[in-house]
């Protein structure tokens, strides 16, 4: 079974079914804000968001996680994360972002496998919720993606008003739909058409940056010392909001927390926007000013990762645009270098 349909009313049955074998995460409103939360029957799944404030990145790469613990000099490894997990309601852009993180954390990145992230990924099923109503700050379609992009998803779900259409896009997704055969009715031509139509309309409504990404990269590489960077970075206040909200930012710190010889080594999100990120113990700092740090952020996404991972590390979710306290807009950065 490659696809299935379920009414919104019966949808909790589907989640309940999934819950038998896995932890189910879905967007739920807590404290007035929708965000991923472990779903239980009392929770009603939120469908009315365009983009969640925080992407599901943190489910695989938590902001703080223990990588080992120690007691009086002896090290104990953290048991590997083998728990099954289903994530429902990730936007396609956020799911696609995970495929980028995979390239960083998997063995294909110079032979080092990051067991914490990779184990969680391998044990998870991603059910993305295709976008019917993209935001004005969304620009996934300018980055070779779109409102129902399948990258990173196992199943893509379409919200068709009173019902949901689930379409498997990987073997894992197929198995999941097959396994839930009892609560799903099979998809038919009409829902498939509706889903296609919805996606086409959503795509139509999006603004396109019309930027040729390879030339953006080239122009950026050629303009490393260009004074344009002074102009583009002047109003940055140097917070890390953009990096922490970004679904593709993955930089981290490792530090020890200890009390009386007992403690743990933790990995935490870190931001290239902080001076301490690159400051040597000697006090020397290769990226001393915000200009260099912001340039690093954009060049990392639009040039370095293209070279190293073959991808522009931006999925066009627009979070950094809407949440930046001074409206530094990555779209402007892209178009600036597209035109150069």
């Amino acid at each position, binding site marked *: 079974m490659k696809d299935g349909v379920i009414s919104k009313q019966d949808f909790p049955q589907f989640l309940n079914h999934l819950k038998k074998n896995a932890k189910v995460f879905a967007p739920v409103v807590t404290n007035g804000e929708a965000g991923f939360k472990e779903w239980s029957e009392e929770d009603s799944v939120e469908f009315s968001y365009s983009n969640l404030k925080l992407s599901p990145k943190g489910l695989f790469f938590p902001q703080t996680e223990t990588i080992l613990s120690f007691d009086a000099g002896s090290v104990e490894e953290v048991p590997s994360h083998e728990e099954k997990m289903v994530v429902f309601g990730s936007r396609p852009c956020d799911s696609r972002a995970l495929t980028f993180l995979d390239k960083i954390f998997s063995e294909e*990145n110079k032979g080092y496998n990051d067991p914490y992230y990779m184990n969680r990924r391998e044990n998870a099923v991603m059910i993305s919720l295709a976008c019917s109503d993209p935001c004005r700050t969304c620009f996934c379609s300018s980055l070779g993606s779109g409102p129902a992009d399948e990258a990173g998803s196992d199943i893509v779900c379409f919200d068709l008003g009173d019902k949901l259409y689930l379409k498997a896009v990987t073997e894992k997704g197929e198995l999941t739909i097959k396994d839930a055969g009892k609560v799903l009715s099979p998809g038919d031509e009409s829902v498939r058409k509706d889903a296609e139509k919805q996606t086409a309309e959503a795509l139509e409504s999006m603004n396109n940056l019309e930027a040729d990404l390879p030339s953006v990269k080239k122009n950026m590489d050629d303009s490393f010392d260009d004074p344009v960077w002074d102009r583009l970075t002047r109003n940055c206040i140097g917070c890390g909001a953009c990096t922490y909200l970004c679904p593709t930012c993955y930089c*981290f710190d490792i530090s020890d927390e200890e009390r009386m010889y007992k403690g743990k080594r933790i990995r935490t999100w870190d931001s290239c926007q902080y001076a301490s990120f690159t400051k040597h113990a000697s006090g020397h700092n290769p990226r001393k000013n915000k200009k260099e740090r912001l340039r690093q952020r954009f060049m990392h996404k639009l040039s370095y990762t293209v070279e190293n991972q073959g991808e522009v590390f931006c999925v066009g979710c627009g979070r950094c645009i809407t949440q930046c306290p001074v409206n530094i807009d990555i779209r402007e950065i892209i178009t600036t270098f597209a035109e150069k």
Partner: protein
Amino acid sequence: MSAEAKNPYIPYPVTIEDITIENDARDLKTFKLVFEKPEHKKAFSYLPGQFAEVSVLGMGESPFGIASSPTEEDYLLFTVKLTGTVTQELHNSEPGRKIGVRGPLGNTFPWDRMEGKNILIVSGGFAFTTLRSSIVYMLDKKNRDRFGKITALYGARSPGELMYKEALKEWQEDSGIDLTLTVDREPEVPWDGKVGLVPNVLRELKPSADNTLALVCGPPIMIRFTIPALQELGFTEENIILSLENRMKCGIGKCGRCNVGSKYVCIDGPVFTFAELEELPAEY
């Protein structure tokens, strides 16, 4: 160890067997570490130029160039300058303390390219660590024939600041290497080495660039003035080999902070040719 992939974040347990104070200022100490388990010792197979994360539980990890040579099979050496919390804790340690080592990490000096070549080593201050490793490695009986003439110039502020004093003495008597020592100013103690800054002494020594690779490690200011001197002597950009340092955490190309342009010092480096560095922004 199991057959499955190793968790690259878990350090190997090691014991500090010996601690040597290297300089008069007493802020440089060399730690001799031995693995607790033979399989870890075996797994830790390295070549000069590489580094490792030295881990002090509760304080954290710091990357240091490996100062021992693979030919010194029973132990690892790290020379540590007192600067931050981890190094403070190490300096306060006594032999017998158990710590951790994660590695080996990074690339090596270009040993394939160095085969059959003359080798010039230029170093200043406490950046001499991986070059000590290289010299010991090349002078080993098994390896000496693989290289041509080996010339080394090593400088420090004063005689008391030169590291590895025992080894220096041995090398001065070794016909396999031509070692010159220099100090910045005329010292108050008896001194039969040179007096002068490394780049100046280098110009005076005029080592031949013919069929020669230059390995250069030192403080940024020394590097800045040594490179023109080498170029005057005829060394090409490809034949000048440098080792970079940047702030690191993971050491395995994931945490994202040690990059210089698109290159990560921990994975693509720390060893780069000057030609490679010329292509990169100066973010180091």
